């Protein structure tokens, strides 16, 4: 680059960067390692001791399995709805002129509402309206939690849609609908896929809102929370480790697609 930081400053900058990453990743990775330790006491397993004992025990934990199923259903519906709604919101955003920023803030602001307040207040609304807590009420809460993220991802993916492409298509007689189907949609497809995956993960891992909005069948994070506070068993490590690993893998998949061009089109920058 054009700035000369000097070796000492470079080392300092990298050291802080790595320290930050260690703070984020070391504890969950340690938990993941512990989950492969067959011993009851948490600790790093020896390489020869690595075992899937606790993972094999997971299917017998009926409460966890039921909660996982419920969470997967909720996350799928939330992801479909959040992606669709955010696409509409993004399209509207580009149609708007003067009220753009106002619309942007309207979609983004729910992200800043604390989970406890949104969950509690939404459950009050549902109780007052005579709506029973169920997977649907959780989806309602998760939709607003996931939409701001999906919206930003989709907005960013619109960078691939050059104005000139649309103008050229219009000159050739394409209606705005055809422009959308033949040009915009293929170009923003990677953004839509990312938005879907991100929304799915946000819902799957969301705890606070689900705590207030879940009906008889709790979601996985709510059940995990209860078990974590009533004497952690190694099975909890296995379930947590598996969910963490799956979440990381999903995001990594999106990243890999953008490192190797050809697997997905890069947006021009």
């Amino acid at each position: 680059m054009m700035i000369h930081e000097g070796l000492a400053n470079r080392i300092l900058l990298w050291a802080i960067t790595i320290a930050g990453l260690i703070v984020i990743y070391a504890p969950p990775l340690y938990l993941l390692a512990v989950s492969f330790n067959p011993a009851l006491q948490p600790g790093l397993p020896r390489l020869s001791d690595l075992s899937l004992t606790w993972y094999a025990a997971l299917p017998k934990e009926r409460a966890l399995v039921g909660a996982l199923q419920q969470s997967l259903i909720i996350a799928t519906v939330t992801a479909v709805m959040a992606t669709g709604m955010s696409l509409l919101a993004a399209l509207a955003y580009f149609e708007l002129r003067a009220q753009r920023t106002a619309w942007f803030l309207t979609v983004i602001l729910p992200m800043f509402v604390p989970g406890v307040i949104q969950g509690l207040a939404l459950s009050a609304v549902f109780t007052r309206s005579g709506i029973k807590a169920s997977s649907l009420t959780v989806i309602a809460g998760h939709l607003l939690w996931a939409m701001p993220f999906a919206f930003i991802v989709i907005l960013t993916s619109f960078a691939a849609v050059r104005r000139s492409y649309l103008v050229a298509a219009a000159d050739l007689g394409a209606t705005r609908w055809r422009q959308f189907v033949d040009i915009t949609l293929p170009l923003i497809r990677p953004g839509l896929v990312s938005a879907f995956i991100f929304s799915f993960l946000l819902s799957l891992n969301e705890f606070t809102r689900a705590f207030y909005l879940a009906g008889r069948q709790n979601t996985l994070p709510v059940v995990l929370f209860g078990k974590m506070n009533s004497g952690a068993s190694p099975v909890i490590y296995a379930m947590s480790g598996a969910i963490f690993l799956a979440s990381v893998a999903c995001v990594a998949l999106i990243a890999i697609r953008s490192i190797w061009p050809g697997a997905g089109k890069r947006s021009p920058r």
Partner: protein
Amino acid sequence: MTGPRLPTSSVLMTPPLLAILAFGLAPLTIVVVWSFWSWDPLTYWIKPDLSLAGYAAILEAGRWTVIVSTLVKALGTALLCLLIAYPTAYAVHFLAGRRLSIILLALITIPFFTSYLIRSFSWRLVLGRTGVLNTWLQDWGITHAPLEWLLFSNFAVVVGLVASYLPFATFPLLLSMRRVDPTFLAAAQDLGAGFWKSLTSILLPLTMSGIFAGFLFVFVMVVGSSTEVQMLGGAGASIVSVMINDVMRVANYPLAFAISTIVLVVIFGLVLIGNRIFGLASLFEDQSQ
């Protein structure tokens, strides 16, 4: 021209707007309205009689101090996150090559979409009496007995908060650095400015919107957090969200919602002021054009 037509902006807006109104605005309206209702401690019932009892109760039982200590935690965490996130954003944007920067970007993105619950919980294994850190400290002879204050303490909570919300500071900083014209930095260099001089007189002022956005995001997230305190805090440790939850054990909606209203006013006030001064929206919007 036949065939389906792309609807106008008002039609496109309708579904997301309805969702935001029904699941976002309606609950917040209830929060504000019910915070002025009255609550009967004998029956646990709430009545639509105008009352400021909810707000008055904030001044009782040390609830006020929880709000203040939450704001202090948020301030401290946000500053700590900025201290780590600024060098990180710098390294990703200016130091790393293309591949490495994408890998780092992925590593910064992943935490947004993993479980805050699991990540907080995993700190128990690190900070506990028989945790990694205490074991190391004793093995190396630095301490002779396990440090008790590592877990279930304010220290643990702040560590957990930084670990949870650090990426919220890194991201806006990165976005703001991308908008800095590198020729400014090159010019400063040509005129003889060293790294620290260019940093303080060029880069820091030009990334002020990112610094503020990063601070704000972390601050707001900490004010709304509960998991970290529930997983890592000591006995009686509290934070606004946990206090709201405790108050709801007796279904005291007016008090819970009075606290919530104050929190919401602080959060939305900061976000809107931030948008007015620094154009928060443009930080994300310019990426899309």
